[in-house]
């Protein structure tokens, strides 16, 4: 006689999917918050430069599920959920400086500001998703 799949097991699987979806929603908000908080030195109205607009993207299981950023070559996104947020190529020279250009730190500051309060983005989204699980 075949074993019956218990309803409790089915419910747990649905909840796991809801938790992952909630995390994905929350990471979208984190990426958006980072873009709003960061202040690139070349952003208007102060000047015209190469680093003016940050971007973000969320990848789930290797597939892009949110955001508009292109995946950086070095980023590994095959498993789980990954949020990548940042600036284009010259960004690291702005952040760290070069021999002829002083450092203009702005990226790590924005990252610390957003990451420190990450739970306030994640918690409500996970709760909302779990509330819909029957």
């Amino acid at each position, binding site marked *: 006689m075949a074993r019956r799949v218990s309803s409790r097991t089915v419910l747990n699987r649905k909840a796991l999917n809801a938790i992952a979806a909630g995390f994905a929603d929350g990471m979208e908000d984190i990426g958006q918050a980072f873009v709003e908080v960061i202040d690139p030195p070349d952003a208007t109205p102060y000047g015209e430069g190469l680093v003016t607009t940050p971007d973000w993207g969320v990848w789930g299981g290797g597939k892009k599920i949110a955001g508009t950023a292109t995946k950086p070559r070095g980023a590994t996104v095959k498993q789980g959920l990954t949020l990548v947020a940042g600036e284009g190529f010259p960004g690291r020279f702005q952040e760290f*400086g*070069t*021999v002829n250009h002083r*450092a203009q730190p702005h990226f*790590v500051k924005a990252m610390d*500001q957003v990451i420190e309060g990450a739970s306030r983005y994640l918690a409500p989204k996970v709760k909302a998703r779990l509330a819909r699980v029957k």
Partner: protein
Amino acid sequence: MLDPLPKILIELRNDVEVDALVDGRVRGWEPAEGDAQPFGKYKAFVVLVRLDAPRLPRAPIQQASIAVRCYGTDKANAYAVYAACSDAIHNIGPRLHNNGLGIYISHDDTGASQDADPVTKQPLETFVIRLSATTQEVA
């Protein structure tokens, strides 16, 4: 509020392995005159820049991020300079400096990122030190 960067700079400058490679050329904020040289005349040197140092809301502690650029005479030398700097500060426990700054712990938070200066093309390795330190003098 106490700045941790000068003390980390001193720690790197006083480290025997770092000094053997850069001969005292550990700089804060920007390279000194004569550090940056054109191709064929590269010198090894280190530049530290404080990225941020947010304070905890109540406890008198700051968690600073300091970017370290390790320039080398070639790619292997740049990595050797990075390795010496990383060994000098990674997982080093509580220490007290003469101005009252206490550093609880410091870590190489990112590992080395290989790069080259966009103007001189000198090889360099970049990493970020993350540390927890006091914001006020301690005895």
